[in-house]
Structures are given as structure tokens and as C-alpha cells.
């Protein structure tokens, strides 16, 4: 472990106890997020990206969720904290941006109220001070006429404006870690580009560490330093962003990247999405034996069907695959 690790996830396992059985959405993953760094997380939908982010802040209802493992934030295990302690962290040291700006803002409260309540809570300022800070945050995320917008309800705003408001809310207490769960996925392409630009700029200004979950490879290329690839609840590969794009080791990563031409780091945002991989993602209730990717893998070998793949470390990269043993 490096010295400047901010978030350190060990063997995180999140299971849901459902009527159909126990569903392991996150299956013993290890991740490190360093200070000031952006870690990209990619993978097909349903592979456990959101559950990972929600598990970090313990935002999953439990039951049905059961979270195991260690999530060290600044050396302290978030999973062992009391509810009061974790509430001190939420929205303050660690905050979150969600995928759906249409549904993640409360329709019956003004945007200003929703931003200022976190400020008031964590910074112990008066209502008025919190409100003016909220307006200031809206200005920072480039919402036009922020003092008027603050008094409006979310339904009066476009998707892009709402996502700006969400970002303002998430950054209002200067978090040290931002969990951004597909922050641009629900937006159309031009708006996506604006939001990406905004996040890029803010990242430089506030020097927050970011866990960036996205389908958007352009966004990963522009913002992330390292990338973790998830498949069915496991991190199957982790690598510095250039290495991953230039030479994906895991056949799954290969499939995801498809035949994208990789031209330097300046891939235009919003263009490149993850590729479709042939075959269906199996149900989490029927996880394939041994390597869980083998039924869809074009390079599957005999051993892939028989034994769990080993974790191979190679030049600062990690891959969970028999090919590299």
C-alpha cells in the first residue's frame, strides 16, 4: 500500500438476501484510491459498480444488503463506524453524484434548500449563510442567475442544469472523495461535454479524489489516471489508463474496448462508449464455476472452466486471468 492512499477497499463483499436467493453483487474486491487521484471504474451494467459506491457510504438498506470486508477512509474503517460517525462523513468528506438527475433531486424542495441543508449540517453555519453559500456553489457550477435558480424547484430545470445542481450539492462541503456514479450517462451528448468540462475544471480547483463510474471511455481517458474493470462483482483488471487502452490484458477488457483506435490521450469525450460483448451476462444467482467470464470468453482454456483464475500482478497492473499466469 502506498503512503498517500485515501480510500482503501479490502475484500469488499456485498450480498443481497432476496426471495430468489442470496445475490452477490460485489464479490470480494480490492481497490485503492490515492489522494487527488481519479480512479475510473468501468464494466457492463449490472456488474456491481453502483453497489460498490453505495456500499462505501453504507447507503444500501440492510436488510436486504449485507456488506462485508473493510473500507478504510484515511485509515478508519467506514464499515465499523457508528451511524452517527458515518453521517459525519457523508456529504462532508465523501459525497456522491448519481446517474439520474431527473430523480435524484427532491421534487418538493427548492434546489437552494437541497444544497444548503448539507452546508448547514456540516459547517454549522446559519440558514442564511448556508443559503448564500449554496447560491455561490450554483455560480461555481455555472448555473445562470444562481440566486433565482436557487429558489426554484427541480422540475423547472433541464437535465443538465439539475446535474450541475447535483454537482454543486456534492462539492458544497469540499469533500476529499467524490463518488461519481455515471454522472453524464443520462445526459445528451452536448450537455455531457459541458458537464465533463465542468468536472475537469473543478477537479483541478478543489483537488478532490474521485471514483468515476462510467460507460464513457472518453470521460475515463480525460479524467482518470487508473482504471478498474469490473465483471460480475469482481475487479478483473486494473491498470494505468494508458496501459489499459493500449494493451488490455483481460479478454473481457479487450471485448469492452473493442476496436477503438487509441490516438494519444485526446479522445473526444462523449463519443466512445463501451462495446457490446457477445453473449449474455449470466444471472448473479447462477454464477459460472471457476472463471465467471469463461462462457463468454473467446480465449477460454480448459483450466478456466475448472479453477478460479489467479490474480496476476505485472508492471503495476493487476489482472484476474489464467492467460497471464
Amino acid at each position, binding site marked *: 500500500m502506498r503512503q498517500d492512499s485515501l480510500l482503501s477497499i479490502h475484500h469488499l463483499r456485498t450480498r443481497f438476501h432476496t426471495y430468489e436467493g442470496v445475490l452477490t453483487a460485489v464479490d470480494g474486491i480490492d481497490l485503492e484510491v490515492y489522494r487527488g487521484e481519479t480512479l475510473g471504474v468501468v464494466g457492463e451494467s449490472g456488474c456491481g459498480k453502483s453497489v460498490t459506491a453505495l456500499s462505501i457510504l453504507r447507503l444500501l438498506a440492510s436488510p436486504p444488503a449485507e456488506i462485508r470486508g473493510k473500507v478504510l477512509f484515511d485509515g478508519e474503517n467506514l464499515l465499523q463506524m457508528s451511524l452517527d460517525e458515518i453521517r*459525519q462523513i457523508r456529504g462532508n468528506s465523501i459525497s456522491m453524484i448519481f446517474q439520474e438527475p431527473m*430523480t435524484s433531486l*427532491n421534487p*418538493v424542495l427548492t434546489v437552494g434548500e437541497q444544497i444548503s441543508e448539507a452546508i448547514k449540517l456540516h459547517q454549522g453555519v446559519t440558514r442564511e449563510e448556508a443559503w448564500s453559500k449554496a447560491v455561490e456553489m450554483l455560480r461555481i457550477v455555472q448555473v445562470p442567475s444562481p440566486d433565482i435558480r436557487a429558489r426554484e424547484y427541480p422540475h423547472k430545470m433541464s437535465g443538465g442544469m439539475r446535474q450541475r445542481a447535483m454537482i454543486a450539492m456534492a462539492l458544497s462541503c469540499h469533500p476529499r472523495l467524490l463518488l461519481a456514479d455515471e454522472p453524464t450517462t443520462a445526459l445528451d451528448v452536448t450537455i455531457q461535454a459541458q458537464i465533463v468540462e465542468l468536472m475537469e475544471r473543478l477537479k483541478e480547483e478543489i483537488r478532490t479524489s474521485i471514483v468515476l463510474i462510467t460507460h464513457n471511455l472518453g470521460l475515463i481517458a480525460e479524467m482518470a489516471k487508473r482504471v478498474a474493470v469490473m465483471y460480475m462483482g469482481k475487479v478483473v483488471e486494473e491498470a494505468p489508463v494508458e496501459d489499459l487502452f493500449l494493451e488490455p490484458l483481460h479478454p473481457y477488457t479487450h471485448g469492452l474496448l473493442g476496436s477503438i483506435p487509441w490516438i494519444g490521450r485526446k479522445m473526444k469525450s462523449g463519443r466512445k462508449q463501451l462495446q457490446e460483448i457477445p453473449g449474455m451476462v449470466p444471472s448473479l444467482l447462477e454464477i459460472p464455476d471457476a472463471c465467471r467470464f469463461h462462457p463468454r470468453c473467446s480465449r477460454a482454456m480448459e483450466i478456466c472452466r475448472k479453477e478460479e483464475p489467479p490474480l496476476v500482478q505485472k508492471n503495476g497492473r493487476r489482472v484476474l486471468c489464467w492467460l497471464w499466469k
Partner: protein
Amino acid sequence: MFQYVLKRLLSTLPVLLGISLLLFFMLRMLPGDPAQVLAGQMASPDDIKIIRHQLGLDRPIFIQYGFFLSRLARFDLGRSARTQNPVIKEIWARLPNTMLLAVAAISLACLFGIPAGIISAVRPYTWIDYLFNSMALFGISMPVFWLGLMLVVIFSIMLQWLPAGGTGSWKHIVLPSFTLAAFVVAFITRITRASMIETLSQDYTTTARSKGLKERVVIVKHALKNALIPIITVVGLQFGLLLGGAVLTETVFAWPGLGRLIVDSILARDYPVIQGTILIFGLLYILVNLVVDLLYAYIDPRIRYA
């Protein structure tokens, strides 16, 4: 806002007119002769004729309705065929009792039903959820007059804590309002639970939690406020029913309200009082709906601009 209220008020006029028309003709279609009832069994045909003339019942029916409407416009609902008092006076004497009982019952029902629904939604399928659910079921499946009588037996006769009937002090309202609330509370508990389970699973609730808000704030400020629309709808509906339908309870507890008045009037074929009371019921119902609509707009900004 003022314009909205005015528009809503004006739009109730045709509804009222419709009620009055329906009512007037439906009553005329009932078997039985009000003049006969008023005159009694021993009256001669001539007596009945005179009474019929006094009541205007010998005129063509459309003229009768015309008179009825023009008086209505002057808040003159006619005189009771039974007591000869102006109908409006008869109603006015009982309206406060009915209102008092309805308000007390609905308040009690909300006071218990809304927190019970919230707790059930926060802890679904736990013993407390099942407990509230069974209590609600118990309240709704109990015949009102039976529950009323049981309460009288226990609290008036055995314990002698509360009067068995009549009006006069706050003690008199306790048993009838509990009886009514027991029935209504189930609806409020169920809708609160369903509505809260829905809003508690919404994305904005997760957003609220992700800000570090206390669970109490998440539940009340973020989830409950969104759940209020269906709750208020049911409360309004039930309140409207209480205003017009507490007949059994009013009978059991000898509570002099509009429910008793209308039953007595139907038995006596006292057309003017029946008409007047039902019209007042209609008016109250419309008013309750108006208040509910205004509350919608107050709670949900999306309705304000719609």
C-alpha cells in the same frame, strides 16, 4: 393563488346546481305523500289538500323546482314540514356538532394513522408493522354500532368515566370520536404506509441520506413531504364521508348532528329538510375537495404550475 381559489370556487356552482336538480327530482320519485305524513293517519282528504297547497305540492313540478332554486339563491331552504322551523335553522343547530365530531375523529385518526403508517413503512414486515396492520384491520372490520356499544358498556357503564351519550362537555365527544376514528384510521394507516414505502425507495431519498442527514430528517422532510399527496386525498375523502355519514355513531351516542337529522327527516318524509341537508352535505364535500386541492398546490410545486 387568489385567482386559482376564485376559479375553483366558481367552478363549484354548476356542481351544486346539478346536485340540487338531481336531489329535487329523486325525492319526488319516492313513494309516499309528504302531506299525508304531515297530516297524520286521521286527517280528512280536505285537510291533506290544504296542507298540500301550503307546501306548494299541487303546483307543476318544474315550478316547484323553480321556486326551490330562487329561494336557494337567497339561502332560504324552506321550512321543515315537521317542525315548521326554517330548514336553515334546523341545519344550523346541528352543523357545529357534526363538524366537531368529524374534526375530532379525523384528527384522532391522523394522529394515530400517519405515525403508524410511517413506522410500518420504515420497518416493513416486522412485528410492529404487523401489529399496526392488525389494529387497522380490527378497526375497519368492527361494525360501528357494535364498537360504539362496547365502548359505552366499558367506559360509561362499567368504569363510569365518560357519559354514554349527548353533548355538553369535552367528555361527551370522546367515545363517539374514537368510534368513528377506529373506522377511518385503517385507510389512513394503509395509504401512509404504501405511500411512504414508495417515496423511501426513491433516488432522492438516497441523495438525502448521502448528504449525511439524520434519518428523522430524511423521513419527514424528504420522504413524507412527497408522500403527502395520496395521504391528503384519503384524509379529505374520509373527512367528507364523516361530515355526511356519521349516522350510526350519532344514533348510538344520541349525538345531535346532521346524520340524525337526515334520518329523522327521511322517516318523516320531510322533503325540505332532506333537500337542505343533502345540499349542505354537497356543499361541505365540495369545500373539503377545494381545501384538498389547495393543499396539493401548496405541497407539490409541480401542481402549482400545471
